[in-house]
């Protein structure tokens, strides 16, 4: 992502970038297939796979029973026997239905077998709040997944990155979760037409700055960019880092930034307690303690389920203003 994007560069909404990433993945490998609940005829409840059923047929774009445990098991068994499954778990909240298959089978099989198998399985799932879907369809549960050795976890924020993450995940020989964001489906950005992969485990500096680092996860990247504009008016020059991949985490890019700015705030939509921000803050303090001029801050959701009613949900979710306020607090302004 560069500011020099030409006017001819193709713009695509996040939703269509997902479709294109899956389409090109299915084109790239005959061994790849997409399976999930209503991914075929309906193109998913989010319409993110619209057209793929007609294009690739029911053998490769497969409507499954409502069976999340069965779906992840399908991925493990097919992945261990020569295929490159792409499994859709409609809402990331539903991983509770298949957590054994994720944590004890998908993640661990390679290790338990002494490295004698690979599981090139991509799990596509939709996370995040912001559209009034209440407590069981709005969560950000990435920390659950990041805690399990054997999984890779990506949270692409832009159309460019969601397409590149899907293709990268499908090319990878390991299980990779791509947690897409339902409130970002309409966001438009530059998306090259040809197939490309983003680098798994490589963070992106979204905005360079000299006196404060915000590490912003998933959709919070966009809020952090807005916060940076607000803070610029107060003379605070913010650097925004989008980790893109949470497991493995690109600690080095984060540390390089903090060593320059001496202050950091980590932002995510997930509940703050035990969130991935705690891990990032700990790593910064372990590795760059002498470079810090202030404690590493964290902004996340309060310790509550995601509420339904719009004013409650808005109060619950972090946003640009809350981030800007958090930065000012850490600096000691206001």
């Amino acid at each position, binding site marked *: 992502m560069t500011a020099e994007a030409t006017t001819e560069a193709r713009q695509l909404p996040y939703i269509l970038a997902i479709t294109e990433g899956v389409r090109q993945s299915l084109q790239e490998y005959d061994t790849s297939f997409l399976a999930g609940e209503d991914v075929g005829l309906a193109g998913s409840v989010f319409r993110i796979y619209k057209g793929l059923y007609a294009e690739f047929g029911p053998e490769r774009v497969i409507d499954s029973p409502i069976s999340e*445990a*069965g779906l992840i098991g399908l991925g*493990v068994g*097919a992945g261990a026997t020569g*295929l490159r499954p792409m499994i859709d778990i409609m809402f990331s909240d539903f991983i509770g239905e298949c957590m054994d298959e994720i944590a*004890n*089978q998908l993640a661990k099989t390679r290790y338990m077998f*002494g490295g004698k198998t690979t599981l090139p399985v991509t799990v596509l799932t939709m996370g995040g709040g912001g559209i009034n879907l209440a407590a069981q369809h709005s969560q950000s549960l990435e920390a659950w997944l990041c805690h399990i050795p*054997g999984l890779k976890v990506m949270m692409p924020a832009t159309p460019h990155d969601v397409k590149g993450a899907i293709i990268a995940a499908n090319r990878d020989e390991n299980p990779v979760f791509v947690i897409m964001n339902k409130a970002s489906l309409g966001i438009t950005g530059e998306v090259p037409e040809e197939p490309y992969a983003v680098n798994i485990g490589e963070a992106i500096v979204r905005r360079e700055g000299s006196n404060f680092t915000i590490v912003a996860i998933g959709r919070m990247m966009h809020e952090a960019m807005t916060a940076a504009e607000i803070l610029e008016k107060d003379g605070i020059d913010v650097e925004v880092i989008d980790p893109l991949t949470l497991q493995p985490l690109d600690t080095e890019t984060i540390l390089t930034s903090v060593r320059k700015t001496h202050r950091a705030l980590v932002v995510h939509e997930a509940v703050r307690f035990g969130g991935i921000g705690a891990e990032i803050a700990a790593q910064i303090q372990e590795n760059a303690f002498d470079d810090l001029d202030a404690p590493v801050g964290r902004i996340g959701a309060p310790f509550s389920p995601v509420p339904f009613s719009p004013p409650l949900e808005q109060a619950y979710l972090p946003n640009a203003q809350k981030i800007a306020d958090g930065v000012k607090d850490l600096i000691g302004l206001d």
Partner: protein
Amino acid sequence: MELTKDILLDLHRRMVRIRHFEDEAGKLSESGQMPGALHLYVGEEAVAAGVMVHLSDEDQITSTHRGHGHLVAKGGDFKQMYAELYGRSTGYNKGKGGSMHIANVDAGMLGANGIVAAGPPIAVGAGFSNKYRGTKNVAVPFFGDGATNEGSFHEAANMAAVWKLPVVFVCENNGYGEFTPQAEHQAIKDITDRAAGYGMPGIQADGMDAIAVWEAAGEAIERARNGEGPTLLECKTYRYYDHVGRSGIGLEYRSDEELDEYRKEDPIPKIEKHLIDNNVLTADEIQAVHDGILAEIAEAIKFAENSPLPDPSTVTEDVYYTG
């Protein structure tokens, strides 16, 4: 499907291999020479042997916490198996899996599994893969009566049936979920009652009789290979040792009389009588089979004990494929 001499000898040999492998492992575990916990398959040999005779290395199985028997029957090498149970780097899983995760993917053995009913969904994935790749191979998940109470079994059975996958679900109904008798953990006696609910045939075989299992499994596996979909095959069987180890945790939950009844049905003497009655082997020849296998086991144990322990620096290797 004809029960030839070769098949009889094969059934017998696979069962004897399991029996002696397990007996020796149980002793080594009890004496403290082997780390961890073992769930022994002794008593249930007819099921693994009767099914596995029909399978090639390209057919897959998933196993259970009681998984050694399945791997032995699928052609598992004693040296690599004992080495794995001993936690040695020469084991099938380089010492990273142990008894409960022992696997040999190259021969289609997709792992013992420490989670009850985790195998069926994985076998459905392998069955899907067989169909997707246009092969005639089948996938066979083994599981117990207790596993049929898990949701993952239900999801797997339904998916295999609705997609007509080449999967044969083999239930080893040994009458107990750990220490809980079947009558106290489910309201049915026959697991096959559940088959109708998935729209698949349910058939039963005497799990203490390798020939009976061989016949029933052959029918189900042929259906699967012909694209006619999955079958639920229930084999009523019994484990002679306890849930874990040979003597378990000292709990009295089943009677000596019950055990004695099943001892009378021991599948190995049963097939040996058949071999002698039908002039396939003499008693001396049968003894020679046992002796040969015991010698192979002694050598394998020596190999395992002399094998190096894994280097502690390899603890985080194999978490991810890195190229």
